[in-house]
């Protein structure tokens, strides 16, 4: 900080006459963003460029020997390795299952909890509590609760006469289980964001619509939902990216099993890079992941922009 100050004053005394106001502002601005930019270059852009390069090599983490192989890793992933498509499918299933469930639950809870009533604080607290809980703790506990016959979830279901499946041992149910437990863990954050947005909507809008005889649903559809659009976009992007990078939850709940039913991209990259030592292949996968997330975000943003017009 002291450096920034002296830099700036010396710049001022030295060359002040020559500097236009605009130029000085630009220099100051770059000083303000310099820590962010430096960190960005060092820990983000540099590594990202490196990933591109790594992805063109065959590189063993343990022997530390690298050979340039061109696009072989990409070809392997896309056309040779059946696991890749399976993993990609899992990642999409996870995202497609998680994002709508999370967002609709978050919105429903926010609508119920945005206005004060007796008990509102209690419920807001309850639904936000898993967010502040460590993901590791969450996964550890749920792994217990979701055991076959002895698990608490199935014992509760048995009370209402439902024979629950062996959650974490059936590929499809395991996917359902990791999605639902993840939603319970994270929905509180989106709920709070929606509550904040709802509270920012002036009451007059709703009152005016009500005067015109609009039903609750119409008010929601015509007034509230459009006004929530910017929040919805942000929540969507954050939740979607979050669902693609889910690692700890999978690592601890299922380890990618059973039958690779919950093996998602982020976990697969870790496994390839740090368990099988294929740094090159893992980097190619990472690039593919980057492109997917980028494309999805850009699509969503352009759609939204058109929508707004």
């Amino acid at each position, binding site marked *: 900080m002291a450096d920034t100050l002296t830099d700036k004053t010396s710049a001022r005394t030295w060359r002040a006459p020559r500097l236009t106001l605009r130029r000085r502002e630009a220099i100051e601005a770059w000083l303000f963003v310099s820590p962010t930019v430096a960190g960005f*270059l*060092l820990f983000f852009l*540099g*590594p990202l*460029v*490196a990933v591109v*390069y*790594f992805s063109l*090599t065959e590189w*063993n*983490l*343990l*022997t*530390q020997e*690298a*050979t*340039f192989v061109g696009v072989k890793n990409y070809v392997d992933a896309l056309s040779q390795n059946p696991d890749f498509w399976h993993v990609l499918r899992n990642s999409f299933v996870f995202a497609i299952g998680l994002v709508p469930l999370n967002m609709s639950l978050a919105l429903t809870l926010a609508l119920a909890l945005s206005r004060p009533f007796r008990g509102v604080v209690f419920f807001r607290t309850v639904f936000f509590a898993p967010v502040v809980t460590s993901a590791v703790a969450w996964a550890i506990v749920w792994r217990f609760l979701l*055991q*076959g*016959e*002895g698990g608490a979830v199935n014992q509760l279901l048995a009370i209402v006469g439902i024979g629950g499946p*062996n*959650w*974490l*041992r059936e*590929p499809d149910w395991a996917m359902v289980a990791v999605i639902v437990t993840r939603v319970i863990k994270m929905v509180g954050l989106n709920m709070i964001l929606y509550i904040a947005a709802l509270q920012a909507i002036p009451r007059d809008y709703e009152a005016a619509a009500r005067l015109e005889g609009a039903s609750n649903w119409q008010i929601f559809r015509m007034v509230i939902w459009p006004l929530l659009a910017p929040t919805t976009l942000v929540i969507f992007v954050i939740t979607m990216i979050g669902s693609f990078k889910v690692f700890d939850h999978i690592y601890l709940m299922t*380890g990618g*099993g*059973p*039958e*690779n*039913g919950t093996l998602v991209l982020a976990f697969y990259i870790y*496994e390839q890079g*740090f*368990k*099988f*030592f294929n740094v090159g292949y893992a980097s190619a996968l990472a690039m593919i992941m980057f492109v997917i997330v980028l494309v999805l975000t850009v699509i969503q943003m352009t759609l939204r922009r058109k929508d707004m017009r």
Partner: protein
Amino acid sequence: MNLRRKILAASTILSLAAMSAPVLAEELRFTVWTGGEAHLRMLNEIAESFKVTHPDVTVRFETIPAADYTQKLTFQLAGGNPPDLGWMMEDAAPTFAAAGVLMDLGPTLREAEGYDFADYSQPALGLWTDGEAVYGVPFSTSPFMIFYNKTLFDEAGLEDPLQLAASGKWNMDTFQEVARTIKEKTGKWGFEFKDGQGYESRIMHALMPPIRAYGGDVWANGECGFDKPEAVQAVQQLHDMVFKDKSIVPPGEQGDYFSGSSAMTMNQISRASKMPEAGFEWGIAPLPSGPAGESPVIGQAAIVVFERGEQKELAAEFVAHMTNKENVAKMAQFFPPARKSVLESEAFTSANAIIPPEQMAHVSDAIEKGKVLPSHEKSPQILAAMAPRVDALWKADADVKQALDGVCAAIEPLL
């Protein structure tokens, strides 16, 4: 090497001088996966006795929990922060040896005074040697044994496995029979796979012993053995026990042997340290024999020195000290030895404080006749490729032959 440098330079915008971790010149860092007090006390005693010849050398034992051991070790090696020496499990050995990160201990051991390298049983060294090169010295060559709950066997009115073994009737058929009877008469599980993890992290430990008893193998000479008739028969029997007899703890359930929920399990004798607190009468017996006769299965762990350590010569000397006759005899109270002289001595069978000598005799016997668990340079990949196919096997309606064909299809390209 050069390539790597370039890449690093590319990824590093600021060039920072690499600092090597400050290491005391005379301290050896030794990674182990035990945190047990008794184990560590013994290890420290051995380190202490090294001071007789190397007064300035201390050895620091660093515990890395077993579940993440190999992974963390990899990070330390790849991260440029290797320990000087460490324990290594048999399934990791070929991978690490092939990657050239293990030091050849052969010259040091053969020259060490009074070491008598030939005293080590050849089969026990198989995994750790390549021609003249020695990449590790096994400190634990521990056969898998049947642990049984005598109280439950009495309750069901059955002869226990040790008695059955004595009368030559302890085979795969009687194994299935007693497990079923236990389930029927006591309501407890007949058998639990090793540590209850036979469907997840201990697939090999669950499948290997019966397959060998039937005369099969999981792989050999680059060929998959899971789809051979012997293996199919063996796995079919396990499958029947899980889903027809319901005598083996099924996937997703808990039936902990050590807390009395299962009448039998399979484990190594180091696990006996858990028994005194178990609260029931117990014993150990050999694995049931099969159509191919007795075929004990052995799990191994060895001491290795890392090639990139800065004091590898000194570390190698410590290995020579730690695995000399005297210290191997000392370690035999916990870890079954691979030195013939110790194995055949009275000291070994009577050294174990928890297991009576006549049961220990079965352990020595198994070490002599047994074969080490299969391993492979690509073990991590093979296990990962197997796991989903084996998951498919453990379903009530699975076709065993088909599932095992699937296992072979998955691992064959890697073998």
